[in-house]
């Protein structure tokens, strides 16, 4: 029996006449890596923002880690981590200051912060750089650091919004090692991406087209269903019907 950590029910977001997310219903299980795919403008970021409490749905509902997104937003916040499209650490703070700051924001004790930051710096191999300003690090390292900071409080679920944008393939691979490592610790990963090779790393993936969820299955099953050799072909098959222009 799999535990459900994210459950949505006809979750919808409209901006005027424009339906960004159209009644999507799905479940995400504990500990899985859930890929949230779609072309630009398909409604991925909007959906993710609703799940994180950054945006209020127009209609429909969802529970995150067992908490209702309308009534228990504060409890949800304590149980999730979030990494946005933009690189979002403070560039004018050092590595260690960033770690301490976000640890503090998530209410960790001094002792926990100390342990966590030592572990993190070890894991990322940033010992030499720990007192350098984050702004001086290469993008790949920044992204890895941002991910590690997003799960510093051991959340139940972490939401990653195109975390590997603009990063080279080697660093992307290393980034996914971090994701696997977090997943092994029992953290559920909810990740949006453009890269179809990354889609293959996910346990299950969903496809958003024009605000609707067109498919949801394991990569193997999806390839079978659409009689495709790669995820690229699956994506192409599904996205072909899209009416919206990429933004």
């Amino acid at each position, binding site marked *: 029996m799999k535990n459900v950590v994210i459950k949505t029910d006809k979750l919808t977001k409209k901006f005027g006449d424009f339906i960004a997310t159209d009644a999507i219903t799905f479940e995400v299980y504990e500990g899985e890596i859930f890929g949230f795919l779609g072309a630009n403008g398909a409604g991925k970021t909007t959906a993710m923002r609703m799940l994180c409490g950054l*945006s209020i749905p127009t209609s429909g509902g969802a529970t995150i880690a067992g908490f209702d997104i309308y009534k228990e937003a504060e409890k949800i916040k304590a149980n999730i981590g979030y990494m946005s499209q933009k690189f979002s650490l403070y560039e004018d703070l050092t590595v260690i200051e960033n770690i301490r700051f976000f640890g503090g924001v998530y209410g960790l004790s001094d002792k926990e912060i100390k342990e966590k930051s030592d572990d993190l710096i070890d894991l990322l191999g940033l010992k030499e750089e720990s007192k350098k300003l984050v702004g001086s690090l290469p993008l790949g390292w920044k992204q890895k650091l941002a991910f590690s900071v997003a799960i510093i409080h051991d959340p139940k679920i972490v939401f990653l919004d195109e975390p590997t944008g603009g990063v080279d393939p080697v660093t992307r691979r290393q980034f996914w090692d971090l994701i696997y490592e977090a997943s092994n610790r029992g953290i559920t990963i909810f990740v949006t991406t453009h890269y179809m090779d990354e889609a293959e790393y996910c346990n299950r993936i969903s496809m958003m087209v024009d605000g609707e969820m067109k498919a949801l299955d394991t990569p193997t099953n999806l390839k079978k269903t659409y009689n495709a050799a790669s995820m690229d072909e699956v994506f192409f098959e599904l996205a072909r019907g899209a009416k919206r222009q990429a933004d």
Partner: protein
Amino acid sequence: MKQFFTFVKKEFYHVFRDRKTLLMLFGLPIAQIMLFGFALTNEIKDSKIMVVDYANDSASKEIIQKLAASDQFELQKSLMSHREIEAAFKQGIVNLAVVFPANFNSDLLSQNSAQIQVIADASDPNKANSLTNYVNNIVRDYQQERVNESQLPYQIQAEIRMLYNPELKGATNFVPGVMALVLVLVCVLMTSISIVREKENGTMEILLVSPFNPFLVIISKAVPYFVLSLINLTVILLLSIFLMEMPFEGSLLLFYAESSLLIIAALSLGLLISNSTDSQQTAMLLALMGMMIPTMLFTGFMFPIENMPVPLRIISNVVPSKWYYIIVKSIMIKGLGFSAIWKETLVLVGMTAFFLFVSFKKFKIRLA
């Protein structure tokens, strides 16, 4: 509470890492005090004048001597003819000419009255006005001396006293103004920019997703700028007292309390601006156009509000620094207590409460 201090600490890092801005924050008030104090003073010193002395008697000579000896004037030329005056004005050699008619002294003795002609270059009317006033004062001084000598029974004398500022120093006017300007600038500009910066960098999203209370985000952002403003204020105060020889008659405590009030008003205005834009440039432009210029124009330290047309006078009432300016002048120069400024304080409290209410109401906890 611990989260709050973590946040405040981080804000101080931002402030101290940004050396250029820090330098500007502290350099600006010092530069302004120096500028207003020494360069842009409205006292007039060493104005070039000339005299045409047809009388050439003891009275005229004595007055000329007094004119030449005063700080305000520098005797450029003594001419023998009226006609040269216009040429001297046209060449810009002098700003003022004094003409003594023939028989000046004998007129004074026989008729008990005599006339002199004072000609000023009124292309700068304010300056011309001040200069003729200076001449008047000197002539009156001289009359006074003669009256004492001759012991005439009934003499009417005009006595002019300059209250609070007997030396007519410009500093009393602009120091409170610079205080208001600096507080508004630092608080409005810096808070709005620092909040908008978080939006631009995407860190605001992260903070909003975290369990950290969004209102604490705002309050902890305000803390460093509140502290910086108080330090800035103290620097200006010390400079003006020890360098400009400004008086400080009233209560220091009251002064800081009233200043804190203006700071809070300005901080909430900064917050309001940061709510309405997502780019640092727009925030800066809004803060500069929306706050700096009205503060300069309508506070009263550059242009007297009483001389403005009615619509502008009405507008000036919504500028918080105008009220602060009145308050600070009353405390510093007149040494008045709270009972004298409670009305202005009430206006400022009302404005602050209003800005705070609106900006907290408008603050977006969510992105869309």
